[in-house]
Structures are given as C-alpha cells and as structure tokens.
C-alpha cells in the first residue's frame, strides 16, 4: 500500500550560499553573474564561465567534495531531527555524474606520479555514499546513481518509491557535483558552453554555464508541507545528445499520472531550462504539447545555481522548496529577448506563491528524462 512521502529535512550548498535566508534572498534578488574561471595550469588558454561555491563555504584541497557533501547532509539531518534508531538505519541514495572526479583531479595535480600514471586511489562509483554513511554512522543500504544529469533525480525517485511502499522508513538522498576540469573541457568540446551568460528560453541563448553544488534531503512517510507526490523516469533512446519533445512529454505525463495530478492543476513548472538551443527548444515544445493554451508560469534556476549536472534535480528541488517556504516562485534572470520559435517567457520577477502543485523537470544526456511532481501547502 503506497503511503504519502514528504521532505523532512534539507541541506544545500550552492553558488548562492548555504544559509537558507541568504540563499532565498539571493534567489529573490536574481543575482546570476557567473565567475570567470581561468585554467592556466593546462596551458590550453581555457577561460570558462562557472557558478562556483562562495570560497568561504568549503576549503580548497583534496577533500573539498567531501566537505561540500558533509555540510549539506549535516544540515538535512539536523532539520529532520531523526531518532538515534532512525538515523542508524538510514539508507543513503547518492546521485552524481562526476562522482569524486574533482578530488581525483586535485590529487593527480598535486602528486609527482601524475606525470606518469594517474593513481586513482579507491576509485569506484560508490565512494561518496560509503563516506557519507561512515561519517554520519548511517547503517542502511547505500545506492549510487550515475545517469548523467538525471542522477540525483533518479536517486530521489527510487528512494521515494521504496519509502512509499514501506520497504524503507526514511531515506537520505544526496546530489553532488564538484568543479572538475574534465567536465568543463568535455562540454566545451561539445560546443555547449555559453560565452556570456546562461539565458534559458532566450532568443540569444548560447549554452550552459556549469556550476557546483551539494544538496541533501531526508524523506519519510506521513504528511508534511512539502509532499513528493510522484515522478517518472524514462529513456528516450533516439539520440544520445538531442532530446525529443515526445520523450519529454511522455515523462511529464507519467509523472503527473503517478502523482494523480492533472496538468491543469500544476501551479508552476521548474523547467530544466539549460540555456542551450537544442534542450530549450525541445522542452518548450514539450511544455506546449502538454499544457496547450494554459501553460502555467515557467522558471529556470540554472542562471543562478549554474548547471550542476548530476546533482541539478535535487539542488533545484531544495532551492525551489526554500523559495516556496518564503512565499514566492523564483524568476529566471538574464532573459532579454523572447524567441518566437520557443514561445516561452520565463518568469521575469519573483511570483508570490504560498501553495500549489509543481512540476520539476530534469532531462539528461542519453535521453534519461526524469520529472517530479510536488505539492506544497
């Protein structure tokens, strides 16, 4: 028998900070100026726009990623106020696309042997989940998801299903993406990085501005203000880098059906909204197909948070939720010129909102499409 699932605690470290009041204030103000990262050590003349964490939040070094994750998890666990028993049996679901690549790069750059062979100490896709469990003495099962940009969303959807069915009482879900040069150069080689700013749905959109963040949520059964009503994951296996509107529509419809919510009941959409030509065009067409003439307000958080790749679904859920708690839906900064081929004007100013149903989209490489429906009151 399925039971309702809600969010019991959240933590977030992102380009707009860690403290909830600070984060909400920045999201309300629409601050979205990317930093310029130069990568002189590589001799490639690399100059990339990026949305990094504020330097005061975590120290640089080989354990930077761990510090990010532990801070977000610590905040989520504190807020969830679990009993000792609940905490000890808590399972951990981690979603990330680069896992601990940032740490590995730092190690490699600092060691003499990097000149001959990379020694990837304790490499494996489950290392973050194992470290979180050990650090916080959590003894439940650990699952690590790596499915590109839907990683953390799929981790959350799976945890939701396990909790809703009663197989788990609660779950800790973590999404993390830490700065790494391979990711920056990889997306650059694909010609997907913006050279001025992230402008979702804008006629002048030129691509992604990557970012880094760690987010954590504790979910459990019962009623709460933020209810995870349902979601869906599907694979649109047509083209590995070009999503189709049909694939997106099918996923959004499945998510709404799982949540038992009609499209007309959606208060607003948190779009995936990457700022790339291909993704925004496909997502806009999908939203028009699904909602027809009654498209609800649409916003993208990527100009402010950066595109946090495998973590983005969870990072943006927490940011969206904190804004709702403060009574508004965040706007999409950097939008200047409507694109007639897209036909979507994202929110230009924060929209007062105290409750409703929200569709949160997350579409990854490999046609890995995931959508989540939440209720807030």
């Amino acid at each position, binding site marked *: 028998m399925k039971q309702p699932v809600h969010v019991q605690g959240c933590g977030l470290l992102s380009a707009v900070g860690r403290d909830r009041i600070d984060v909400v204030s920045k999201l309300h103000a629409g601050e979205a100026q990317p930093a310029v990262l130069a990568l002189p050590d590589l001799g490639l003349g690399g100059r990339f726009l990026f949305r990094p964490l504020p330097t005061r939040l975590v120290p640089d070094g080989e354990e930077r990623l761990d510090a990010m994750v532990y801070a977000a998890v610590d905040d989520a666990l504190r807020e969830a106020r679990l009993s000792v028993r609940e905490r000890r049996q808590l399972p951990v679901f981690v979603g990330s696309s680069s896992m601990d690549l940032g740490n590995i790069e730092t190690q490699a750059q600092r060691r003499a042997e990097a000149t001959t062979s990379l020694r990837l100490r304790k490499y494996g*896709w489950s290392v973050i989940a194992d470290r979180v469990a050990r650090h916080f003495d959590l*003894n439940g099962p650990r*699952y690590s998801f*790596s499915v590109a940009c839907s990683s953390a969303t799929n981790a959350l959807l799976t945890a939701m299903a*396990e909790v809703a069915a009663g197989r788990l009482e609660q779950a800790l879900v973590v999404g993390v993406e830490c700065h790494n040069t391979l990711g920056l150069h*990889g997306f650059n080689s694909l010609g997907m990085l913006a050279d001025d700013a992230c402008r979702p749905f804008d006629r002048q959109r030129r691509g992604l501005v990557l970012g880094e963040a760690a987010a954590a949520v504790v979910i459990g059964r019962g009623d709460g203000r933020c209810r995870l009503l349902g979601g869906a994951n599907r*694979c649109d*296996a047509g083209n590995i880098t070009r999503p189709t509107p049909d*694939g997106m529509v099918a996923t959004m419809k499945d998510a709404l059906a799982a949540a038992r919510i009609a499209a007309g009941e959606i208060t607003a959409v948190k779009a995936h909204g990457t700022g790339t030509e291909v993704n925004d065009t496909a997502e806009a067409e999908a939203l028009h197909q699904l909602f027809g003439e009654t498209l609800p307000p649409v916003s993208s958080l990527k100009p402010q948070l950066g595109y946090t790749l495998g973590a983005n679904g969870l990072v943006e859920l927490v940011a969206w939720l904190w804004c709702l708690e403060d009574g508004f839906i965040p706007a999409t900064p950097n939008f200047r010129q409507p694109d007639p081929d897209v036909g979507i004007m994202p929110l230009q100013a924060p929209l007062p909102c105290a409750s409703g149903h929200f569709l949160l989209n997350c579409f990854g490489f*490999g046609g890995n499409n995931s959508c989540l429906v939440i209720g807030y009151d």
Partner: protein
Amino acid sequence: MTEVRIRASRAMAFPAVEPPRPLRDELRALCQRAPRRLNRFTELALIGALGCAQQADMPLPSDCALYLATGQGFADDTARLLEALLIEQQAPMPVDFINVSGSSAGFYLAQTLGLDSRNNTIAAGPASFEAALSLAWGALADHPGLALVGGVDVAGHPLADHRQRLGLAPDTGIVEISSWLLLDSRANATGASLVRPQYWGNFAEALEDLRARKPGPWSLGNGLTTSERSQLRALADEVLPAPDSGQADTLSAYAIASWLEKKPSTGPLLHLNGDGAGGYYLVELLP
C-alpha cells in the same frame, strides 16, 4: 503479494588478458546493427544483455525497465581522458566525453533493445549487483512488469595500472563481467522465484538471521572477508565453488546467473555478499 520470477539469464565472465579480448565481432554476431564507436564497457554490456534477451523466447516489451549495476563503471576511460587532459594537455574528443557519461551504456542498451522505460546505472561496491537487484525487485513488486538487471565491469589496460588503481596486489586476477537476469512479476510469469533481497547493516545481525535458514547450496560473494567466509562456511551444508578466480565488483551477477543456467532442481540458492562498507545482502532464489 507480487511474485518476482527470473524469466531468463545470461552468465558471462572471462579473465582479463593482455591484450584485451576483442568484443566487436562477438557483438556483431548478436546484433548486426550494433551502434558504432562504443567503449569496451558498453560493448560488453550489450553482449550480455542481448544474450539474456535471446533466452527470453519473446521480444522485450518497450516498458521493460533497465538496471545496470557496476562497481567501476568507465574508470579506465575516465583515467585515460584525465591523463590526456592533465598530462598531455589534450581536451577530450566529443565522442570520448559522451562515452564516459554515466547514462551512455544505458542509452545504447535501451536503443538496441527497444526500451523506453526506467533506466538506471547503480553502484554499491562489490554488492552493486545485489543493490540493483533489490531496487528492481521493489519496482516490480509495486508495478508488475519486466526488468533487465545486469552486472558489468571491465578491466582497464594495461592491467598493472588497473590493479594499481583499485589497490590490488600485482598478481590479482581480474575478471570481466556482463551477466544479466530478466525479471518478470506479471501474473503469468514463469521461472525461478526471486525472494525479496534482504539487507543487514552489520555482519553479526546477518549471521544471527542466517543461522535459522534452511540448508541449501550457498554462494559467497567476493565482498566478504576471509573471516566472514569461514564463519558462513561453518553454517552451510554446501558452498558452491567460486565461479571464477579473479576480482570484479559485479562477480555476484555471474555467480547467480551461472547457477540458474545449470537449471537446478533443488534449492534454494542463498547468495550472501558484503558491500565492502559494512552492509550485507542475501539473495535467495527458489528453483
């Protein structure tokens, strides 16, 4: 209560050798229109999954879910890209970068097999396959249907670098794996029954619960320590020999699929494994 059955299986594992065993011809024998420019991990995943699908005696429906378990994923390819970037200052080529995306193998599996449903790649150290099996079991208990669940790990080359990367002794054997089960929880499902995988957060609790189990053939995974294995051997009437000598995080997939391919008439099979971080899984199969 929904019952989850294993409709088909494919056990595939072989020792990693230098130079690596070529896979392309093997893949083309199974699928003439196999995608090109794949990495070794995806080629091996496709060979195993296509072999399992062929055993099913039915075309896979598009809503068959996919759970791909791996401990190391594309470690070798990622290391190669990093070396090129950090040492030779060469940016990754687009196709190489896409091939180390965590969803790429799942995408090509879905494309080749005609699947459009849930698609996940999951890791949990040496118990990655058990973890994926556990989540697939849950999904099929909630929504009757099919799920293809596989364990895939490849070796990096040269093998000495791969061993070093994983912290293994220079003489440790490495196994490459692509072993798959097709799970079916529909009303008309046939095949061995998969009991809901059980998890314990420490070995003492696992051992206590296992003392009450019926004797049967036991299979011990490579995530167990020597001490844990000897304690479990003392409980068991029969312990199946390890399927292959060598290291791979998803060796359990091969152990379970191998047992099924022998079409056992007695059982149950009790497969116990550790995740290398204090967690233990029991997978129980009823023939």
